[in-house]
Structures are given as structure tokens and as C-alpha cells.
């Protein structure tokens, strides 16, 4: 019996394993192709068309919708609103999450209760949460009633262009900051205690310990949560729909809400698709930029 004379069966271990691999990924892959990538191609196709629903017409118009995008007087305001919302949300969310995580990381009794309470809005239905806040934020609602007790007359939160955006951001921050808080807390607890002990022996102040040890050690978590938070912030819809309907003016009309209006309220599916392409490009560029950033600045243990 030599190796030359032995015939290898077709179904070798590797081949069988490869088939298993394809079978395992098939549902996810096919699903992603059908429900994500194919629709993305369709969005692009639609964006090249003028599409009148009631009259049932669908005409190729080339880049006309993209021309409209450049001329749309509302679009700069919408993009500004989106940028303000995302930036405000990320900054507030991340810093509050970090603050809460550091507080919860202290050696105190009852931290589990505090952690549970801070996290609780995450599991409250988003629309329920937003409806409650929409009531609290009314001019004659709970917040101003509360302020009144201290003799302060609060602004008309949702009707004032300056405070409307702030309100939407803050409502969203309180809703979801618990998620990032937990991730930060896990990261903080993963920092080896010896590092702090070594730093204390070296005479580093608590602030310096935070800046030179804590932040670098949890930087991967900071980066990943910020990616998720930013991409998530671009998808904000229910909060806007319930709290401000994009107003006052267009001050809280973020891109997704504008897209929804154009496509499903005004039935401009062609232009709505063009806005979708814009949204996709923004998400893609932001994600890519952050991954690049990750390579540069994030500290790694290995």
C-alpha cells in the first residue's frame, strides 16, 4: 500500500467542513443580500427616477434628483440638525456614561440598586418613554411645573428652536446612556488594579490616574461605543416624530425624518431614495473614519 495507489475520496474532511461553513452562513448571507444589499441597489436605481404615486408614473430622470439635492433649500438645515443632534448626543451620552460608570465603580454599598435604576430607561419602550417626556416638556408640563416650585419659569422646551434640539438630545441620552454606562463599567472593572497601585506608588494624582491609566485602558470601549452611538444617532426617528415632528421650523428635522417625510408623507419616492443614498454615504464615511482612527489612537494591550 503506497500513497500513490490510494485514491482519495471526493468528500475530504476539508470539503465537508467547507460545505458546513457555507450552510451555516447561508441564512445570514442570503438574508443580508435580499433584505439589505439588494434594496440598497434598488435605492440607487429609484434615486435616478421621478416617481409619482397617484399618477402611477415612473420615469428615468438621470441625476435630476441629485441636482435637486444640491438645490434643496431645506437640506443644509436638515444636515445641520442631524450633525448637531449626533454631536450633542455622542458628547453628552459618552461623558454622562463615563461619569456614571466611574461613580458606580466606587466601593459603596447599594451600587447594584443605583446601577439598576440608571439602566432602567433602556428597557422602557422607546415610544412610551418619549411620550412621557413629550408631556413633561410641554409648556404647562411637569418640568416647568417642577421649575415653578423653585420660582423659575422654564422655557417652552419643544417649541423653542434652541431648546427643542436640546430636549430631543437629552431625552435620548437619558433613555440609552445606561447601555454605554454598563459597557464602560465592564471596561473599568477590567483595568488591572496593579496599574493603579503602581501609579499611586509613583505619586500620580487621581486625575492623572484617570487620564494616564483609565482612559488609555478603556479606549477600545470608548471608540466602539462611540461608533455605535453615532451610527445609532443617525437613525433617530421615533423621538422626533413624537416630540417635535421636526419643528419648530425645521430645527429638529434630522435626515431620517426628512427622508420619511419626503418618501412616505409627500410620496416623493425618487427624491426620498436620493436622501437614502446620502444617509448611507454619511454612515459609511463616519464608520470608516472611526475605524481608521481606531488604528491610530486606540491603545492596545497586545
Amino acid at each position, binding site marked *: 500500500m503506497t500513497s500513490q495507489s490510494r485514491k482519495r475520496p471526493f468528500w475530504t474532511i476539508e470539503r465537508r467542513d467547507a460545505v458546513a461553513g457555507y450552510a451555516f452562513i447561508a441564512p445570514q448571507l442570503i438574508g443580508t443580500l435580499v433584505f439589505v444589499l439588494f434594496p440598497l441597489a434598488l435605492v440607487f436605481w429609484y434615486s435616478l427616477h421621478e416617481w409619482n404615486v*397617484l399618477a402611477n408614473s415612473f420615469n428615468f430622470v438621470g441625476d435630476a434628483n441629485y441636482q435637486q439635492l444640491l438645490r434643496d433649500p431645506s437640506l443644509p438645515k436638515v444636515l445641520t440638525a442631524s450633525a448637531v443632534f449626533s454631536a450633542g448626543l455622542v458628547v453628552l451620552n459618552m461623558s454622562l456614561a463615563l461619569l456614571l460608570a466611574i461613580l458606580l465603580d466606587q466601593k459603596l454599598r447599594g451600587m447594584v440598586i443605583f446601577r439598576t435604576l440608571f439602566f432602567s430607561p433602556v428597557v422602557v419602550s422607546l415610544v412610551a418613554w418619549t411620550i412621557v417626556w413629550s408631556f413633561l416638556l410641554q409648556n404647562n408640563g411637569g418640568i416647568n411645573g417642577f421649575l415653578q416650585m423653585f420660582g423659575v419659569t422654564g422655557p417652552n422646551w*419643544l417649541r423653542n428652536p434652541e431648546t427643542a434640539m436640546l430636549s430631543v438630545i437629552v431625552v435620548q441620552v437619558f433613555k440609552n446612556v445606561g447601555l454605554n454606562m454598563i459597557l464602560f463599567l465592564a471596561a473599568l472593572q477590567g483595568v488591572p488594579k496593579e496599574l493603579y497601585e503602581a501609579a499611586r506608588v509613583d505619586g500620580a494624582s487621581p486625575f492623572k490616574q484617570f487620564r494616564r491609566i483609565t482612559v488609555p485602558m478603556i479606549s477600545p470601549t470608548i471608540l466602539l461605543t462611540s461608533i455605535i452611538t453615532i451610527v445609532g444617532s443617525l437613525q433617530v426617528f421615533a423621538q422626533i416624530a413624537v416630540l417635535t415632528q421636526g419643528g419648530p421650523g425645521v430645527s429638529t*428635522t434630522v435626515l431620517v425624518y426628512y427622508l420619511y417625510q419626503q418618501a412616505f*408623507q409627500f410620496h416623493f419616492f425618487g427624491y426620498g431614495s436620493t436622501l437614502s443614498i446620502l444617509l448611507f454615504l454619511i454612515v459609511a464615511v463616519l464608520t470608516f473614519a472611526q475605524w481608521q482612527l481606531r488604528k491610530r489612537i486606540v491603545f492596545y494591550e497586545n
Partner: protein
Amino acid sequence: MSKCTTLKSSVALASLTLPLAWGGTAWAQDAINLRMTIWSANEAHLAMFDEIAAGFKETHPNVSVTFEPLPFDSYTTTLTTQIAGGNPPDLAWILETTAADFVNSGALAPLTEAFTATEGYDLSDVTEQATALWTKDGQLYAYPFSTSPFAIFANNDVLKAAGAKTPAELIEAGEWNWDNAFASAAAVGQSGKTGLVVRDFKYQTWQNLASIWNGWGASPWSADGKSCTFTEQPMVDAMTVIHKAIFTDKAMPGPGEDIDFFAGETGMTITQISRASLLPKENPFDWDLVPLPAGPAGEYAVVGQAGVGAFAAGPNAETAVEFLAYMTNAENSAKLAQFFPPARASLLNTEALAATNPLLSPEQIETVVIEGIASGTVLPGHTNFAQIQQTVRAGLDSLWVADADVPAALQSVCDSVGPLLAR
């Protein structure tokens, strides 16, 4: 193990398919089911419609009608979405604001011939004023089943407590005009309660303000709908008064204050008379129903309309039109009239209306309902209304602040909506 896996997967499969199966219904072969979208989920309304449908079934045993209530807020959006999806209902209620969109689109089936051919229908009984909005080139495309005048409900308890004159007193004195109405409202507002609420306006549905500005002879756009008239003098004057009433005199609740007149803490509200059903039955207050006050341009009335049309593209369009003719014939119109003020001259008399509106006094029916329907202007509408509504809404937001420059704010409205109107 494999048994267990099979069990698990079949449970998963069943839970996937079961609830979805509920969405579909199997029909008998030659049966026709007509679907009508409506925006009322009121059980009394539904019971009446079911009764009418049952009546139709007596002569057309194979036809049944289902009424599909859609949420009012997103009614037109949902309806248009269904049409866009190639799944239009057979019949649909249509709001006056979007009448132009539907009548002009060619999506609706023409009704005039079918109605005239129906025995005992008497289309001429329906007032022309009411059908104007739903007619194109002499052809009726939807029947105005509800022509509901805007009027003022007053809470005399609240008004008197604030030392304000009630509308009845003002009418008696021949002084029922906006100056005095706002003065009464301001007195209530400054007493800590709410003066006057334009119901459903909520600083979003600005077209409801037509119930005020029509008194100044103002309108949002020209008669042909091509040019913006927010900047013309009547509108500027009307808006200046409204702005002052809100921000200086506290006669009306400010933006972001949600007030319900029927909770009993408000002096007056402008709304359609069909809202009388919301009057509280327990702890009732001394209420009154009066016509809109006179404006600088004289006496006027405003009505909200709702039409019902049949879609031309559906496979059962003919049957749908037939049903529509049945539903809106003289006999059934009388039934509809108990909830929806009718547009038929024969029903527009005090006796007929009193029978169906026991809450209202004969005088209220006469002054508010009959005169209102007879002389009322319909709320503004336009093709492409959704986008225009939103654009104006966004523009007007700059007006709803205490220190707004009214002409400038209105100018900005025209700047943004003008190009849309001109299209």
C-alpha cells in the same frame, strides 16, 4: 436529541406562520367584499355603517362591506401608501384638504351618471356649494357626506367666573365680533384658565385657523392655488390679531400647551359641531353653541368637509359606486345626518336635524348648522397638500414666538411655499 431539535424547529415555524395566517381571510368564490377606509373608530359610527351595509346586502346578497378605521393623524399618508402599493381600498373617506389631490389624480371613479341613474337618488338635492370641491369638469368624484360647520362652544361657567361676557350676551347686544370674543377670552386667560382654544390646531394643523382668518377675508393662497397670499393685508391683519391674542393677551394657549375644552377649564373653543358628543355627561357645565363671530370683513362661516369616493382601478369599482349610491341616497343620508351634518337641502331644516341632534336647540341648529352649511367656505386645500402643509407649518413656526415680526414671518412662509404652489 434529534427529536428535540425537530420539536424546537416546528414550534419556531408554527409561531412564525400562525399569527400571519390571521392576516388573510378566505373568500367565497363569487362573493364581493368592498373595503372602505374611514378615520373614525367610533363604535356608534361603525354600527351605523354596518347597518347601511346590511341594508345593501338585502338587494345584493353577494356583497359585503368592511369598514377599515385608520388613525386620523396619518390617514391620508396611509391611504396614499395603500394606493401606491397597488392595494387601494374600494371606497375611502377623503379630507377636504386633500380633495384636490384625489379629484385631479384620476384615481377616483366618476359618480354623476351612476347617481342620476339610481332611482330616487335626486342628486340635485345636494347643494352645489357642497359638491364644488369634489367636482371636476362637471363630474362628481366624491360625495360630501359630512359638511360640518365650525362654531364656538362656550363654557359659560368659566366665562362668568372670569367676569367675561358670554357669547350669548354679546349676540344679544349685537356685539358678537372677534374684538369682543378675544376680549372675553383674554379675561378668562388672564384669570388663570384658558380663554379660547382652536381645537386640533396645536400649532401644527394651521389650516384650522381659517375659522378665524376668514373673518378678515384672508386666505393662504389665491383661488387658482398658484400664488401665496399669506403676505396680503387681510392675512397680515388677521395673524397680527391672532398673535396678539396668544402672546400679549393670553387669550389663547401658547405653543406646546395642550388644552382640552371639554375637560371644563376653558372659556371657548372653535371646533366642528360634531364634537358636541365630547361634552361631559358627568359634572356637566353650562355650555352654549354659537356661530363664529363677525370679523372685519363681516359675518362668515367655515365648514370642514369630508367626501367619500370609489377607486376607479379596483376590480369591483362598479359595485363600489353602486354601494356609494345606496349609502348616500336620501334615506341613508338621513341616517348619516345624525353624526355628519348633511349637504342635502331636504335635510337642512330644523325639524329633520333636531331629530338627529338632540343635544342642540332649534336655535343652535338654525344659526350654526343650517346657516353655516349654506354659507360656509370650505377649509383650504391644495394638490400636493401634505408637502405644502408641512412647509407652511415649518414657516409659521417663526410666527409662534412672543417677539415675532408678523409680516416678516409671513413673508418667509411665502418664500418657502411659493415655489411649491407655482408648480
